[in-house]
């Protein structure tokens, strides 16, 4: 597959992935552009990339971690899921206002980084081996990490989004 084909095929999903990580359109566009530049340069070195999609996600995630590691998020990260007071108050209001898009981002925000990353990657259809490669974790631990992430997500939804959860 040529560079242009890869670019057109994966640009949008990388923008979405980046937004799920950092919430900013401008930053997402920069991150994705820089990711594709790395991909372009890698191809220029005649290095073959077996799985361009996983490679792009991995590079983007690493760039994000490097660039924004020190930054505080706008919303506080919930340290303990048992504590109701840790949940940003306006989440419930947003739910009733029907702003699902905003809720999804906020729910993702309340999750620890690795939980959020694995859920987003899982939803994007990556295999366990690909997720392990992107997140740089052991392939054998993907299943366990994923199940823990699902449980954590359910806990948040049960506590704060009964309506959404009950639709399930």
């Amino acid at each position, binding site marked *: 597959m040529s560079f242009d084909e890869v670019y057109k095929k994966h640009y949008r999903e990388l923008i*979405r992935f980046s937004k799920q990580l950092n919430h900013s359109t401008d930053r997402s566009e920069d991150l994705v*552009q820089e990711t594709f530049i790395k991909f*372009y340069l890698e191809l220029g070195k005649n290095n073959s990339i077996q799985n361009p999609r996983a490679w792009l996600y991995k590079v983007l995630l690493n760039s994000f971690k490097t660039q924004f590691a020190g930054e505080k998020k706008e919303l506080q990260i919930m340290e303990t899921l048992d504590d109701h007071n840790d949940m940003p108050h306006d989440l419930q209001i947003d739910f009733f206002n029907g702003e699902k898009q905003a809720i999804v*981002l906020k729910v993702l925000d309340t999750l620890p980084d690795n939980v959020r990353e694995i859920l987003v990657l899982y939803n994007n259809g990556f*295999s*366990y081996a690909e997720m392990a490669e992107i997140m740089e974790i052991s392939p054998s631990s993907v*299943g366990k990490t994923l199940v823990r992430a699902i449980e954590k997500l359910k806990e948040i*939804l049960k506590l704060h989004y009964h309506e959404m*959860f009950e639709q399930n």
Partner: protein
Amino acid sequence: MKCLSRTEIQEFIDKEFEPSLMTEISDHIEKCKNCSSLYKQANDDKALINRLLEDDKSVDKDLPIPEFIPPVLYEKKKNIFRLIPFVVAASIIGFIFLFKPARIPVSEPIPEAEMLMYEFYDGQDLNKMWHEKSQILILQDEQGNVIQSIITN
């Protein structure tokens, strides 16, 4: 076959096992009530994640894909953007210096009475004048002790 853990059920749903093991697990789930319940729960969880994040996916369908900017041009563009704050700051400072209004010393007009007073006292020894105009009144008792001294002018 022994019962499966939640993680194993998840791996089964995600087809992470060898085909032969998949068949074996599938048969077990059909027969085992506990595993069947876990399997249903795990499927529901997967549907929940999909439902939660699917709307998010649909948002960017219409997102335009910009032309790819090759590395050299991208660096140039980034450098130009990096310069913008400096250019703006320099322009503001330049503007302030260029168009700063000249300061005209502001002086209050001196009242006429004050002007007359200054004219009157101009060139005179004010200390001497004070002594000439002053009167000293000393009050004494019968023994000659000073009771009070008053200076008037």
